[in-house]
């Protein structure tokens, strides 16, 4: 659906220096998926999303949307394709002079849609986003969540193939964020709209994204399915951003303690390792840990544990200090884990 190839964007800063907002980014976004782009502020994600509808023209690289290369289009053609790429914003960007109804009608008016059709479409959209009681209100009379619903309805007015969401929930409280994300998910499922979602909150990615890329200083530093990225975060930025919801890095004091314990075990001729186990609730059906103890004679200390809901199933993470009589039993035990869909990795000390 969307191909971004070797995209770079350079701005001139006020002091005359070049600022590289995006450096050689390539992405492939599939039809019908919810694709997350996460990064801290200044990572270049807002610039990146604006190249998908050419609000920002990239310095280098190509953008192809639905088979059309935006670089090759005239301004008039670009306007035409923009009607098929809806966009929602952090600060909603609603016209204060228009009612809810008229705000949603604006993109249709711009396309010179007949009045009767506007009436029909807008009424349907107001119903879809659940604002039936507010259609004649002005934006100043609405809450943040309601404003974003207007923004979403407006973005859907021209039946877009793609919906770009630029920090759409960042100005909302957690509860409203969840409701808004549910609405986006509903739209994705029922209308099949591809959603590209920019955010700085892992929580948002966790909630609704299928795949995610992590951006740092204008570059993509990590990419994969949300599950993969949550299980095996590689880049420090990813780990730091995940720390908001999952702890991947142990406090130094505990690590020191673990080192002493491992050394003590090894002195006794035993084999000890610090492991991080991750598992999906629906995949693990056996009481794996207690079997580990009974069958393989592996003792363990649970140092940290967490269960999160990740895209409809339970995602668990345990950090354990495992100790076994020798390396052979230890390896047999880890094999048993793998067979039972528990992934593990050694935590570097």
């Amino acid at each position, binding site marked *: 659906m969307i191909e971004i190839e070797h995209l770079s964007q350079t701005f001139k800063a006020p002091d005359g220096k070049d600022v590289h907002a995006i450096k050689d980014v390539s992405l492939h976004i599939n039809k019908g998926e919810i694709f997350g782009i996460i990064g801290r502020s200044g990572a270049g994600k807002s610039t990146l999303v604006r190249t998908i509808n050419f609000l920002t023209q990239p310095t280098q690289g190509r953008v192809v949307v639905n088979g059309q290369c935006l670089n090759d289009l005239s301004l008039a053609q670009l306007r035409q394709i923009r009607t098929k790429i809806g966009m929602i*914003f952090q600060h909603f960007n609603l*016209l204060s002079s228009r009612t809810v109804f008229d705000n949603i009608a604006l993109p249709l008016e711009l396309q010179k849609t007949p009045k009767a059709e506007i009436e029909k479409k807008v009424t349907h959209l107001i119903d879809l986003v659940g604002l039936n009681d507010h259609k004649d209100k002005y934006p100043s009379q609405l809450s943040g969540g309601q404003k974003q619903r207007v923004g979403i309805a407006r973005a859907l007015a021209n039946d877009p193939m793609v919906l770009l969401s630029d920090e759409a929930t960042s100005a909302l409280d957690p509860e409203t964020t969840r409701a808004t994300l549910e609405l986006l998910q509903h739209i994705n499922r029922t209308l099949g709209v591809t959603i590209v979602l920019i955010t700085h909150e892992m929580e948002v990615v966790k909630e609704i994204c299928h795949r995610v890329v992590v951006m740092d200083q204008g570059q993509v530093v990590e990419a994969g399915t949300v599950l993969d990225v949550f299980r095996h975060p590689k880049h420090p930025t990813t780990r730091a951003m995940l720390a908001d919801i999952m702890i991947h890095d142990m406090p130094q004091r505990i690590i020191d303690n673990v080192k002493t314990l491992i050394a003590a075990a090894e002195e006794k001729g035993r084999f000890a390792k610090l492991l991080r186990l991750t598992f999906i609730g629906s995949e693990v059906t056996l009481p794996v840990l207690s079997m580990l103890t009974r069958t393989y004679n592996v003792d363990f200390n649970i140092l940290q544990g967490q269960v999160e809901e990740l895209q409809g199933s339970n995602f668990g993470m345990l950090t354990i200090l495992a100790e076994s009589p020798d390396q052979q039993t230890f390896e047999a035990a880890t094999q048993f884990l793998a067979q039972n869909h528990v992934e593990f990795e050694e935590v570097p000390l």
Partner: protein
Amino acid sequence: MSPEIIALLGDGFVETVIMVIGSGILGSVIGIPLGVLLHVTDKDGLMPRLATNAVVGVLVNAVRSTPFIILLVAIYPLTRLLVGTTIGTTATLVPLVIGVAPFIARLVETSLREVDRGLIEAAQSMGATNMQIINKVLLPEALPGIVAGVTIAIVTLVGYSAMAGAIGGGGLGDIGIRYGHNRYMPDVMWTVVLILIVFVQVIQSFGDWCVRKVSKR
């Protein structure tokens, strides 16, 4: 005050109203598009045209820095060309409009600048043309500011009209000078002042009411 003087004041008031409202309307017809032009051709505007912006900007500033009393006489030839005479209420409309249009243009430019850039970006993301953005986003969103600006300009026109009147345009200012000052009739002068105070008060209140009416913020 004699009935003649009262009749004179009545006629003068009508003339003042014609000058102020007439030039206010014509000045807006010229000034609002001029303000839009100044805004959109600016370097951060919708369609940056720096040369156009500079030329229009200099012209606007030139008119605005010319004292109105000098502008009045300086454009006599133009007034004669357009109206056929330089004397009378209709003739004063020419300098009044030329004097107020650049003022309105700057006020309009300022209120357009207040419109959130995000709204323009949103409109662009919907595939709006620049003309559509001006007509459907910029002007409606800036309307309260534009109305407030035009109100200020009309109040300023009350002062301008007195000057225009004094050199042959008629109106209350003319009466105030000729009868109140030259013939030493202070009661006439103070009556003129009082009428103008009430007139300005009414214009301002009406303008404020309009702003409240169009503002949905």
